[in-house]
């Protein structure tokens, strides 16, 4: 059982914020780290794994500092999102190499490498150079190096990236298994339903800030509560806007930059859309385009920041 603690952790790249004042405790079980691209997920992982020091704050594993403390690194496994690997080594050689760096002798390392390759479904490709692996196979071998030394704490940075459907199922099962075994597992993604497949507990990160921690359904509620933006392009802009503004469901209405573009924010999309449909049909207003522009996580993050 391992507990990772972050206290007021910040990391900057010059003037760019990587992680800003994050305080949390990661406990046994699976936690999803959710955030759009550029949110600071990878930076947070690098700080958590001791690859980078925080500029301020403190990261500890069961009370022991992580930065510059290789003695505890055998308790941590990290599957990075970076694609680069040792292209000329085979999957088997790579995992044997990593196992030996974890302190195993050659014979044990070879045995462990073969077992791990089996776990991640790469037995048949074990002796092929990594340079000849597909993206999914590379993802599997990266996964292998993170789990083969049986760490207490596991970090997976976008582990589903590049995986085929079968690989995704295997990975989800693997992550579930480690969570059930009492390991502290953190999985990142920018896609909510990916995280939902693996856990109910999530952390929301945006612009380096930890916006919220909780269970997935609370985030779902936030998505439902937040105003939904609707974009309509019509040749009868004035007539449509005059009618729509009367709807109580409409929070704001404004003209867009494009000709005939109308941008509407509504709190109640469920009642707004049927009303809008009726209006268009009854008044015979020609509609060229209609879309909702923020039916994704980005709008949740923006909403939370506000």
């Amino acid at each position, binding site marked *: 059982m391992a507990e990772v603690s972050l206290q007021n952790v910040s990391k900057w790249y010059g003037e760019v914020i*990587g992680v800003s004042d994050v305080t949390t405790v990661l406990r046994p079980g699976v936690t999803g780290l959710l955030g759009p691209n*550029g949110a*600071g997920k990878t930076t947070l992982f690098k700080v958590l794994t001791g690859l980078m020091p925080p500029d301020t704050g403190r990261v500890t594993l069961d009370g022991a500092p992580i930065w510059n403390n*290789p003695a505890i690194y055998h308790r*941590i496994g990290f599957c990075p999102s970076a694609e680069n690997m040792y292209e000329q*080594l085979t999957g088997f*050689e790579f995992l044997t190499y990593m196992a030996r760096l974890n302190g195993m002798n*050659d014979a044990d390392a070879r045995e462990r490498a073969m077992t791990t390759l089996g776990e991640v479904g790469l037995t048949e490709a074990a002796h092929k150079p990594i340079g000849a692996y597909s993206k999914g196979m590379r993802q599997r071998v990266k996964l292998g190096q993170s789990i083969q030394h049986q760490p207490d704490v596991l970090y997976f940075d976008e582990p589903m990236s590049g995986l085929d459907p079968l690989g995704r199922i295997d990975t989800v099962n693997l992550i579930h298994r480690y969570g059930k075994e009492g390991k502290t597992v953190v999985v990142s993604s920018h896609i909510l339903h990916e995280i939902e497949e693996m856990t109910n507990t999530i952390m929301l990160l945006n612009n380096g800030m930890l916006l919220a921690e909780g269970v997935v359904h609370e985030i779902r509620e936030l998505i439902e509560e937040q105003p939904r933006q609707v974009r309509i392009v019509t040749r009868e802009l004035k007539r449509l806007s005059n009618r729509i503004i009367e709807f109580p469901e409409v929070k704001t209405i404004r003209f867009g930059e494009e000709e005939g573009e109308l941008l509407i924010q509504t709190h109640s999309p469920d009642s707004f859309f049927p009303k809008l449909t009726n209006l268009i049909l009854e008044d015979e207003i020609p509609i060229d385009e209609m879309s909702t522009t923020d039916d994704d996580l980005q709008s949740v993050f923006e909403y939370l920041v506000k």
Partner: protein
Amino acid sequence: MNANPTNPTDLLNPLAALISVNARMKLMGRSPLYPVILILLSLMPAILWRLVYAWLSQYAAIESSMIDAFTVYSIFCSTLFMQFYVPGLSLLMGMTIFSEEIENETVIYLLLRPVPRFILVLGKFLSYLAVSSGLLGVSLVMSYLIIGSTPGAGLITNQLDSLVKDWMVFTLGMAAYGAVMMLVGVFFKQRLLVGLLLMFVWDTTAAFLPGSAYQFTVRYYLFSIFSHADAQNTTQNLFDAMKQMLGMHPHASAFSAVLVLCLIVTACVALTTMIVKHRPLKLGQQEAD
């Protein structure tokens, strides 16, 4: 369960793995032909010498007693090996010892392991030294055989101890130059330019500068322990003339020269460790995610 590789006795496994895997990657990484091509290129001058000698003995009626094979070998060592092969190979292979890992971000996989950073740097450095010294050794022995088996010039079988000594001096040179290049590789962004300047401009011209600038070069200490005293007087005279021409200063003692070269290696490995320890990913990673 894993051993704890931070215990001194358990550090041998990671160190052995670092040396063997990296030596193989360095040797065979680009192509299995890479080391063969490097050795063949280094042998071209010796082969050319044999062709010229064959031509001279056939058409210019040169007598074998006029040329001593060991003298020719000594000239090869002092010019080609000392001036070009040792610094050139160090530049080529030493500079990428650690910088390649940082650039490719594969350094992540090393830094995640419970291995002291010093062992990571030392292991990679020793793998470089094993490969470069091996390549140079093969090249040296083959050059020795090619030159020594010149018909009529006599096989230089009685100079094997000199061959071993030369190889050791060159290995020490590869260690010192390689360690400096490893440090340059992780410290400077324009590492090739800095490396070329250090190796082929500073190291050769410092001897001509006033004061004791020459003492801040690897070459000075390397030449201090490089000696072919057993060769004919002509060789010695030739060396002396060459040293004067190159602006060489009086030798340091062999002991102090070896000591300084070892100190250079130690200091560069320690400084590289510090850089890898404190800013391993700052060199390559600038994005915020």
